[in-house]
């Protein structure tokens, strides 16, 4: 979706503000928000892509105003509510509906370690032959999906070159809305700076973006 989260190339959002000796969390609630997000994912009622898309659905003005872990918290509440794990009434009252059964959490301390250090990832097997090879000239399609996508707006319609084949990976565009992993080939694509930003760009180099095959066409 063409939301404010897709911000590559925008201006006017302020200076970068590195913070010397920044703490890992700026308040204890940030740590709890992170942990709640990771622990509730064990219910498998949504996947990583759905979780990311939920944060993208936060209205633009709110998205820009919120801190990072505020977005995580609001995204998590939206997922929990939409999937029926909690109700708005329960959150407002802070008390569980007495009619709901007490469940057993799928993630205990041991499972939490396994979740952090275990082997996961998005690489999948696929019989489909690669549509492109390293060195091929491609163009990012000028598409504007209404849902979750990993094709940034600034690359659409631009020419690039395949620099690496990462193999078939879970396709976020279908995985986010629950339409399945549908693995597609993922390529690293090099876009020259002047192709993206025009000849007056003022620096020599390139931006590399990892893009799935459906995002690309031969150029």
């Amino acid at each position, binding site marked *: 979706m063409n939301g404010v*989260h897709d911000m*590559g*190339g*925008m201006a006017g*959002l*302020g200076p*970068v*503000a*590195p*913070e010397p000796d920044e703490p890992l969390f*700026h308040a*204890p*609630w940030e*740590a*709890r928000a992170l*942990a*709640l997000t990771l*622990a*509730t994912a064990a*219910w498998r009622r949504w996947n990583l892509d759905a979780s*990311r898309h939920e944060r993208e659905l936060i209205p633009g003005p709110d998205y820009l105003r919120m*801190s*990072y872990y505020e977005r995580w*918290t609001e995204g998590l*509440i939206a997922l*929990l509510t939409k999937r029926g794990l*909690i109700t708005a009434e*329960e959150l407002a009252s*802070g*008390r569980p509906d007495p009619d*709901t059964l*007490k469940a057993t*959490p799928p993630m*205990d*301390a041991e499972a*939490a*370690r396994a*979740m*952090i*250090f275990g*082997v*996961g*990832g*998005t*690489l999948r097997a696929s019989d489909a032959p690669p549509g492109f090879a390293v060195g091929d000239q491609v163009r990012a399609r000028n598409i504007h999906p209404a849902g979750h996508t990993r*094709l*940034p707006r*600034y690359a659409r319609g631009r020419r690039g070159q395949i620099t690496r084949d990462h193999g078939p*990976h879970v396709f976020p565009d279908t995985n986010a809305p629950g339409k399945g992993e549908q693995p597609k080939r*993922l390529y690293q694509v090099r876009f020259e700076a002047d192709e*993206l*930003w025009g000849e007056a*760009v003022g*620096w*020599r180099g*390139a*931006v590399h*973006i*990892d*893009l799935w095959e459906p995002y690309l066409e031969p150029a």
Partner: protein
Amino acid sequence: MPHDAEHHDHHHEDQEPPSDMTLRVKALESLLVEKGLVDPAALDVIIETYVHDVGPRNGARVVAHAWSDPAYRARLLTDATAAIAELGYGGRQGEHMVAVENTPEVHNLVVCTLCSCYPWPVLGLPPTWYKSAPYRSRAVIDPRGVLAEFGLALGEDVEIRVWDSTAEIRYLVLPERPAGTEGLDEAALAEMVSRDSMIGVAKAANR
């Protein structure tokens, strides 16, 4: 230091959260625990792991080892996931790794314009500026301007490669080994490798 005392009054792009976030998250956690949807012990383990076990010291060891062992450096640049796993690092948000090497001719810079993708097993959780709108918006269009805000000025002839990690492939910058560090052991070399040098907004420094 007065600077530190004023610190929390500084305006950040990602504004300070409203004070009710503490209450909102606490209410959410109590509700989820009471319904049996989360185990508080799991929450504590997750937080403790990222506070104590997973952070940029891991990445610094990878870099120092690559500086010291040419065969390891070659493996890191060919198959970073496997090479990083050799040192015992891997897992969530770093299942598929690529390492990119800085040289006198090429400088690499990592960003995620769409959200906050970052190689957790080797760098830990990302700093706020990495997740902020100013960095995400400008790193791809004005990397030299962004680097200048970090105090890093590169020669005009240096090629800049920005890595917009929008997929699940996570990027680690292998910074240049500082001059005058011949003969140092890996522990001493790792001390020179900052988190920022592995994102590409700084150089490794012989401090």
